[in-house]
């Protein structure tokens, strides 16, 4: 685990010996993360893949500074994480938009929380709305938008903060297949133009390979990193996703990831009943 550090540049996110347990409702302890060690390079696109309940969301929330942890240490650019900060923005699976606020106010929300004045935050919000292709929808409310459009709003809200680290928790998990492909391509082209560090959680092997520089494979009970798989596919990838998906390398890595995931599921299959 220590050998796969991202050697090219100095790591932006350094996670050392991270451990996190939850105390459940019946006072039993759930070990969500154990001894997680991970370096994420500056401007790296890291995808995290693993079975349900293996602690992916927990890992992301600790990096975001949203939940405390029990053991270990998380640093961003050498500074220990003590809580949420303007250097990190999060995109949520269920979008987490304010249903009463317009698209413009939703996108400007983070800036407002950080005390950016009205004129500036609306200007920045408008340019982000244009970037995610929602110009003309500024005064609509989330209830009037499709799922894909809502997540564009979520993405614009995150990007408006100009974060160094973008934390995405299965951002395209709640939209249909076609919309998901469009959003993936758009995210790729936005990232190719405005480089930043991305930690992207997903259930989909294809998505993990298409987007990531490396894929972190996590296993469950307790949640830990079982392997880190590099994805040496060429960039930029947004120009011809179709060709990329037909390439031998892509197919090979996806198949390898599925082999490893299937092993994990077998390990944790409920033991067969006698008979």
């Amino acid at each position: 685990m220590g050998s796969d550090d991202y050697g090219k540049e100095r790591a932006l996110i350094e996670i050392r010996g991270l451990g996190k347990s939850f105390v459940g409702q019946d006072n039993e302890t759930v070990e969500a993360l154990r001894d997680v060690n991970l370096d994420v390079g500056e401007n790296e696109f890291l995808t995290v893949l693993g079975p349900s309940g293996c602690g992916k969301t927990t890992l992301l929330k600790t990096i975001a500074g949203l939940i405390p942890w029990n053991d270990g240490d998380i640093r961003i650019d050498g500074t220990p994480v003590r809580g949420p900060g303007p250097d990190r923005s999060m995109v949520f699976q269920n979008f987490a938009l304010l249903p009463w606020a317009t698209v413009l106010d939703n996108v400007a929300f983070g800036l407002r929380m950080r005390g950016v004045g009205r004129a500036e935050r609306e200007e920045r919000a408008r340019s982000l709305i244009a970037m995610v292709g929602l110009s003309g929808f500024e005064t609509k409310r989330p209830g009037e938008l499709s799922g894909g459009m809502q997540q564009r709003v979520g993405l614009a809200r995150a990007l408006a903060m100009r974060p160094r680290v973008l934390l995405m928790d299965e951002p395209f998990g709640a939209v249909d297949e076609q919309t998901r492909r469009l959003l993936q391509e758009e995210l790729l082209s936005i990232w190719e133009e405005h480089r930043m560090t991305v930690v992207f959680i997903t259930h989909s092997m294809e998505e993990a390979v298409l987007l990531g520089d490396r894929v972190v494979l996590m296993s469950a009970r307790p949640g830990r990193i079982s392997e880190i798989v590099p994805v040496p596919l060429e960039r930029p990838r947004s120009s011809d996703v179709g060709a990329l998906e037909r390439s031998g390398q892509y197919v090979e890595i996806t198949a390898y990831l599925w082999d490893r995931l299937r092993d994990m599921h077998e390990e944790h299959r409920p033991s067969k009943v006698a008979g």
Partner: protein
Amino acid sequence: MSALADHHSTRAAPARKRPSWRRLPAAPISLAAGAAAWELIGQLAGMSFFPPLSTVLARLADMATSGLIVTSLADSLVNLILGFAISLAAGLVAGVAMGRYRKVEAALGVYVYALLTAPSLVFAPIFFSLLGEGRGSIVAVVVMYAMFVIIINTASAIQSVPVHLVEMARSYGAGERQVLLRVMLPAAAPMIMAGVRLGVGRAVTGMINGEMFIAVVGLGRIVTQAGGRFDSAGVLAVLLVIIAVALGAVALVQAVDRRITRWVPRTTRGNQ
């Protein structure tokens, strides 16, 4: 909306044959029917304690021209507005605190539920001896009637704000104040307003009860005096005014409610 319009225009011919009462507005018809029934029963019964509507309306006109109603109504409305404003302010603060902080809920919950269910009028003598015969006592009764239902609705509204919205706000650097003002209150607004609607109706009841049993002022005084003279038409005339006040207050709250909660999808509301 447009679907409904289409429906009507394309099927105009058969609609003509359908019973036309379907298109009549429900509320005015119901009111007219009630008034007619009142008049009819009153005339037929011929009993002094249940005068027909026309007699009551004539009595109301008398009271209005003599100026009695206007001064009493103004008096009552001041009591109502003061009491309701206090209920609203205190109810929102206490409700938000109880909904957000478990300790506050544990400390205040028992009292709030006890006072919500207790018949509020039993406190009238206490207010009377504490605050005297003046406006203070009546306002206190109004508060007793209206505040607790606002507290309880606000507390559960705050508790049912989706956790993921709070988490989102915190991830963008919102502090406790911003979480409360920018996320929890707007998210809880529809349910809070439901409590406020209940509260305003109860405030009107409290106002009348306070005026009848403590200070004998305002509309409550006219009711008491007319009752003492066995003047049923007078009692019912004031009752009409009280009902108008209550409906007006509720309509006002509803108008505010609609403005605040325009974003809530109306799909669950029937439109037949």
